[in-house]
């Protein structure tokens, strides 16, 4: 899923300080699961903003809505009838949702309430970490199912570097060294010999470097 966390309140206030009526829109997918922008977080942000305005002697009218998905044209339509009543939308979706919202409602200011961080998952309650950078040509088959592009701080395809220390990455003792993980798993799989193969220079044109990416599936187009 996409993992995000809420921006500091002051930053959000900065966006909407001149508004009188805002629409806060949550999303029921990833950001709900990572407790950043679901229905509950929409309610918390709404009251925090109202309180902050009251303290300044101002009033803020807030409408709370949480859509099934903000990265989806169909669900975004659900607010078409009410959106014009507000001065701005504060979106609690990931960066994709915020942009889909902005694209759909051209004349409406849309502000992000979250910082979108990564594609990852929950290691345990309250701990999320990154697993994939969407490079567009998955090499997990060569790396024992652990992604060095994402999890090695230097995205080494032929690691580990000389800084790997007792299983930790050189940049941070709280991070596992991706190459230690790969080697451990190769060993568990009885495939340590795979390590001896050099991974060749990667074609990054399917990654961010190749420009914004797009998939067209003609079989699904109407």
């Amino acid at each position, binding site marked *: 899923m996409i993992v995000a966390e809420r921006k500091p309140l002051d930053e959000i206030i900065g966006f909407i300080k001149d508004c009188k009526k805002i629409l806060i829109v949550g999303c029921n997918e990833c950001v709900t699961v990572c407790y950043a922008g679901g229905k509950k977080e929409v309610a918390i942000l709404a009251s925090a903003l109202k309180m902050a305005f009251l303290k300044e002697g101002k009033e803020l009218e807030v409408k709370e809505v949480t859509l099934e998905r903000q990265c989806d044209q169909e669900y975004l339509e659900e607010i078409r009838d009410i959106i014009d009543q507000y001065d701005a939308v504060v979106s609690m979706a990931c960066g994709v949702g915020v942009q889909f919202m902005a694209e759909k409602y051209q004349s409406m200011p849309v502000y992000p309430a979250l910082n979108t961080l990564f594609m990852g998952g929950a290691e345990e309650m309250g701990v999320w970490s990154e697993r994939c950078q969407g490079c567009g040509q998955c090499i997990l088959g060569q790396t024992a199912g652990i992604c060095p592009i994402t999890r090695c701080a*230097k995205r080494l395809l*032929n690691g580990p570097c000389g*800084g790997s220390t007792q299983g930790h990455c050189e940049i941070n003792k709280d991070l596992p060294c991706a190459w230690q993980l790969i080697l451990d798993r190769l060993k568990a799989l009885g495939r340590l010999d795979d390590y001896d193969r050099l991974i060749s220079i990667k074609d990054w044109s399917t990654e961010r470097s190749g420009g914004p990416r797009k998939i067209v599936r003609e079989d699904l187009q109407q």
Partner: protein
Amino acid sequence: MNPKTPSKLEKILASGQLAVTSECGPPRGSNGDAIAKKAEMIKDYVDAINITDNQTSVTRLCSLAAVIRLKLMGLEPILQMVTRDRNRIALQSDILGAASFEINNILCLSGDHQQFGDNPQAQNVFDIDSMQLIQTVRYMRDEGKFLGGDDLEKSPQMFVGAACNPFADPFEIRARRLAKKVAAGVEFIQTQCIYNLDKFELWMKQIRDMGLHEKVYILAGVTPFKSAGMAKYMKNRVPGMDVPDEVVKRMSGVDKDKQSEEGIKICIESIQRLKDIEGVRGFHIMAIEWEEKVPEIVEKSGLLPRPSVS
């Protein structure tokens, strides 16, 4: 092994003599004389001089300009190049630029993460890694082609080196990782600073068992401690550094004003012991911001006179 390039370092190694290299860090400013001054201090005591490439990710005068300066002084530089800051276009271009000044040695590195430097907010590149940089230089040299497949005019004649840290984890694959670098085409290795000689011997044994010592020239890396504080810092703060307790104790055991002397002594003793290890083909002396001590270390280690080759 017969030399394949005009590199003086390669010729010395191929002749079977112990080679000695050292390194200079470029200044944090545009004063090119600073690098010339450092090189002057050591030039008669070493066969080749590495110029570091924004080491520890601290921004400095570039290694390419600095090696050219040394070359123009008639010296034998080793161009260090990290993949952290340059993509394959810039790397190939810099390799050609260096080759156009007859820089005949390159050390291929991934580089420290930028978090350790003066611009932790920077993007990193890591388009390719150090092994792939080795492959790149060899490809350009041996095939006379760019990575993209086009022919290049006058291929770069570079003796290709890399670093190797026998002390990093997991220890069990460190020799195998060197084997990968050899498969990628590396021709000489400068190791991480060696303080744990027992462990280094163990690693060298693995290297010999794999026959790698016949395929790549290994220069043992040494760095003299200036003080007990430096020994402790290296032990506790530098990732991948293995400084045994006895060494720290030995440094702390002498008076403060005698510590630098003790550091030099330890360094020389290490070189003496390393000389006896089969497969060690020379030394890489990294006297960090202490270049003036290199002559003494080389001399007292019995590494003079330096050979001349044609």
